[in-house]
């Protein structure tokens, strides 16, 4: 299956096609469209965690300079797609997305309760400060630890016969108890927020009474289009969603959140285009987060290091009105060859807003626990942590009893270990000191499930032989346009400069949102197939011109020319083919989706991380000083942008491990870390040299380009590797993230 790499070494990589626009201010983000007649909205949010609004005093705000409207549940339009309001209001059933300004009920602190629309942003901010909301408070529950006893099997699981989140058991449940060597421990990750640097923003424009355009920060224009069409009972095509550039999202833009609806409602009510940009503090309660999760893991092994039992239980927090489920315990079923595995997943509803998927959702959480536990057991076994993992290497998927479509995790381990110099690591903690700091080395595995969704792409060749490729896919940062350009260039034998890829607009051919590392497998395959189809059309047209092209299926492409066979020296240029047939352009649309291979093979991306940390013995400060990350994600389409994505994942993992923590004062049910001074993400000084390696072996069972997607797996396991390195440095096992100095002194 090994074939020539698409893209290695790195100097053949494409530079980000929109890089220059992004760094020079040429890229227009959602809040930056210059729309005539634009007015500005600011949200007023609740200051209680549970109860109801008893009054909204808005006269002063309405009288403030420039104010057009103060919108709340008292005067909001009827949203046609929503059920009629109940009088008196009743608390929402579990499974209902929060409907903004729907009724006076408060479900969480920070919930939008009113919105001020004014001529300028400053006027709207000032007027928002004048809106006085009074509440009837009810006692709230936001403290996970205090309410842990209320965790339950998710309703979603209770209602569905075949949920992956059901309790799972294989082998002998007693195996763990009888294990020769075992460990049991509890691991906690706190609430963590995506906090992309670009805040969520929308400009809503009603072009006509029944025609809506939104410039909205999100991760899926088609999904936003569908949901807005549904809410406002419009034909899909009457709603257009534009998101050509997105300044980071990490999952916060997968769903359509209340503020998006609020802006659309406001634009309808004031009959003007409305811009709404969330404040940094509002970002903590408006667009989801990685949920506070408590996990218990038990691992047992024979004295010679064979896993005999895994028990993995996880409970994540959710809101009172929705369930958010994630893959927290699922990796434990598939990653290692272990005969007996038991997993349980529970949810704890609290008076908070609903969590959502955040980079490596569930897996990053679960693998912190599993990979920490593996390190603990390796230590108890007196085994090298990498040897321990190799000894329990799963040659086929132990959960589904299926062969892997492809798995090069062993090669990842070997390459990563060699580049890192793992063999020099001392097993005993506190063995190495440098410059007065304790030095430690840790590693962890990673895996992430393969996701491929039906996707379309259109390829249009112009008379000059250049090509425009289009799909309603997204770029939240990985460099989608660059990767797609590279795929098109490869298939069509064209210089990348002759290709333009268009994305981020709902009028383009259907594509899934950018999530679950599915863009390259889904959209990349569609682009591949569309370009293959275009190539075949060109070959057929060439066959009409010259007999040598009629052999069928032999044609090859190079430098914008078609050749009859590999050895053919005279090519026909694309421009000449179109010219000969009097064609101004040549258009094909390809659709690509998964076949039956999904049921015959188990498909995952794999990887591992090796980490060096230095810990101040007196100060407890942890600095990550080196990272080697290695991934097996099939074909690497464009090394340069892939590498950036891996680096970003590691940086996210450093934040997750060492500093990110949203802290709530449970007396008020309110976050007290709602700015970047108190919610820490890594700064440059926290980011060490990060070496990135890929196995770069295509998985042709997964999709026609052999590529499995990289975004999520880049972060999965990083926190575990760091915690393991901290243990090796200090002898202290920190099971409650983040690993801050107070936990180490």
């Amino acid at each position, binding site marked *: 299956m090994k074939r020539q790499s698409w893209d290695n070494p790195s100097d053949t990589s494409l530079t980000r096609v929109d890089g220059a626009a992004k760094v020079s201010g040429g890229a227009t983000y959602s809040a930056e469209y210059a729309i005539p007649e634009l007015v500005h909205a600011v949200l007023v949010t609740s*200051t209680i965690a549970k109860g109801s609004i008893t009054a909204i005093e808005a006269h002063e705000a309405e009288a403030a300079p420039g104010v057009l409207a103060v919108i709340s549940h008292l005067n909001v339009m009827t949203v046609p797609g929503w059920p009629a309001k109940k009088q008196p209001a009743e608390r929402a059933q579990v499974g209902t997305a929060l409907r903004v300004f729907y009724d006076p009920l408060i479900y969480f602190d920070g919930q939008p309760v009113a919105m001020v629309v004014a001529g300028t942003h*400053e006027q709207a*901010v*000032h007027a928002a*400060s004048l809106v006085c909301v009074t509440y009837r408070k009810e006692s709230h529950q936001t403290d996970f630890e205090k309410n842990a006893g209320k965790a339950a099997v998710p309703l979603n699981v209770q209602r569905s016969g075949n949920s992956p989140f059901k309790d799972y058991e294989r082998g002998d449940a007693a195996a763990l108890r009888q294990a020769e060597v075992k460990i049991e421990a509890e691991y906690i990750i706190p609430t963590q927020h995506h906090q992309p640097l670009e805040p969520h923003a929308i400009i809503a424009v009603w072009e006509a009474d029944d025609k809506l355009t939104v410039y909205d920060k999100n991760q899926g224009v088609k999904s936003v289009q569908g949901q807005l069409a549904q809410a406002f009972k419009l034909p899909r095509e009457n709603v257009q969603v534009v998101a050509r550039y997105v300044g980071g999202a990490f999952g916060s833009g997968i769903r359509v959140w209340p503020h998006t609806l609020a802006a659309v409602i406001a634009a309808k009510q004031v009959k003007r285009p409305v811009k709404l940009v969330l404040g940094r503090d509002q970002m903590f309660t408006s667009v989801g987060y990685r949920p506070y999760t408590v996990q218990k893991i038990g691992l047992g092994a024979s004295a010679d290091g064979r896993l005999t039992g895994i028990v993995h239980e996880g409970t994540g927090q959710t809101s009172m009105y929705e369930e958010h489920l994630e893959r927290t315990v699922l990796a434990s079923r598939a990653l290692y060859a272990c005969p007996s595995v038991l997993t349980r997943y529970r949810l704890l509803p609290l008076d908070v807003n609903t969590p959502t998927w955040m980079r490596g959702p569930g897996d990053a959480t679960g693998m912190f626990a599993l990979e920490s536990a593996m390190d603990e057991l390796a230590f108890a076994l007196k085994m090298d942590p990498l040897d321990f993992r190799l000894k329990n290497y799963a040659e086929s998927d132990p959960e589904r009893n299926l062969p892997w479509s492809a798995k090069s995790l062993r090669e990842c381990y070997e390459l990563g270990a060699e580049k890192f110099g793992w063999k020099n690591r001392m097993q005993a903690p506190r063995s190495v000191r440098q410059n*007065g700091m304790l030095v430690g080395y840790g590693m962890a595995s990673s895996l992430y499930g393969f996701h491929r969704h039906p996707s379309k792409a259109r390829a249009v060749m112009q008379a000059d032989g250049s090509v425009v490729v289009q799909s309603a896919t997204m770029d939240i940062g990985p460099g989608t346009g660059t990767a797609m350009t590279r795929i098109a260039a490869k298939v069509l034998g064209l210089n990348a400069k002759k290709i333009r890829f268009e994305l981020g607009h709902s009028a383009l051919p259907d594509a899934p949102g950018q999530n679950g590392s599915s863009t390259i497998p889904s959209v990349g395959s569609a682009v591949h197939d569309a370009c293959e189809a275009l190539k075949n059309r060109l070959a057929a047209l060439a066959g009409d011109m010259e007999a040598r092209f009629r052999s069928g299926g032999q044609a090859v492409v190079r430098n914008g020319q078609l050749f009859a066979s590999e050895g053919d020296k005279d090519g026909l240029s694309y421009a000449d083919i179109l010219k000969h047939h009097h064609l101004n352009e040549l258009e094909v649309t390809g659709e690509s989706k998964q076949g039956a291979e999904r049921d015959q093979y188990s498909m995952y991306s794999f990887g591992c991380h090796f980490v060096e940390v230095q810990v*101040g013995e*007196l*100060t*407890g*400060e942890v*600095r990550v000083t080196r990272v080697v990350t290695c991934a097996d994600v099939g074909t690497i389409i464009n090394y340069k942008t892939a590498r950036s994505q891996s680096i970003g994942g590691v940086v996210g993992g450093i934040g997750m491990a*060492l*500093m990110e923590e949203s*802290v*709530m*004062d449970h*007396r*008020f049910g*309110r976050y*007290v*870390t*709602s*700015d970047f*001074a*108190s919610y*820490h993400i*890594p*700064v*440059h*000084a*926290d980011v060490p040299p990060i070496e990135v390696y890929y196995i770069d072996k295509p998985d042709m069972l997964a999709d026609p380009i052999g590529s499995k997607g990289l975004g999520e797996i880049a972060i999965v396991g990083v926190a575990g590797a760091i915690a393991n390195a901290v243990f090796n440095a200090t002898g202290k096992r920190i099971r409650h993230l983040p690993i*801050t*100095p*107070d936990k180490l*002194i």
Partner: protein
Amino acid sequence: MKPFQYLRPKTVQEAISMATDNPGAQYIAGGTNLVDLMKRGIASPPKLIDINHLPLKKIEHRYDRLRIGALALNSDVARHKGVVARQPLLAQALLAGASGQLRNMATVGGNLLQRTRCSYFYDLALPCNKRQPGSGCGAEGGVNRTHAIFFAGNGFGGYEASSCIAVHPSDMCVALTALETNVVVNGPEGERRVMMKDFHRLSTQQPELDTYLRPGELLTAIEVVDNAFAKHSHYLKVRDRASYAFALVSVAAALQMDGGRIWDARMALGGVAHKPWRYWAIDLMLRGQAPSEKLFQEVAEHEMQSAEATAQNAFKIKLTTNAMVAALKTAAGIS
């Protein structure tokens, strides 16, 4: 942000008159703190007096002291040759604070007057005695991992533990406190000099007040008198990330050493009290002694006897002890 009037005086005297004539008006220099406070509705001065163009930027050495204008930028002070050579502790502390971009805007005067970063102070929906006297201290029974462990001290008296447990956020001021800097202040009643120890307040009955400045007064300069600490001083800042974070604990340690013994010692601590915390007895404890880890440990533990933890910051007592030991070791040149 509430609408405000912008004033631009031509001289120091005019600035002082404007401030005196307009109660509630505030001076603005770099604005790196005040603008944030205004955006959040924590400060809403009806008038802003922009002093940026006043001639208060000069850094010079005259007679026995380094005089630094109140409008000198943090970044300019940190890399000024005279400062680096004569008062390296000050340069180190400045560079430990904020980010490069902020240091390029923030002034010495603004740094002295910056307000606490306590989350309760910053959130209008939560109680805070400093922001709204009498509303209660949100942090006291709430999230107080980063809050104070030292409260009363040195005859100030009148302390009420519950009035405010916030900490002063500055790094520069910790170094200035150890260096016994004078703050030069000009006001309606003329110029006066205030010692650092008397500049900021502990949290007494009036936590809304951070300093002992009088109405209308304008900071014009700081003065650091020459000393013999340059060879043996160290600013250690312990924080939750490598840069751009406020101190969990910081230590400004300055020693004068000769013949393997300590002949003078000063220390101030940051992140532990409502103002930079001066460790007064350290000179007495170290004078004439040969430096050793054991000695430093004893000295550190001695000061921590008067520390008092809140629910979530007991770790600070050990962390501060450790940080004092580490800073003293570095300052003394022993590993």
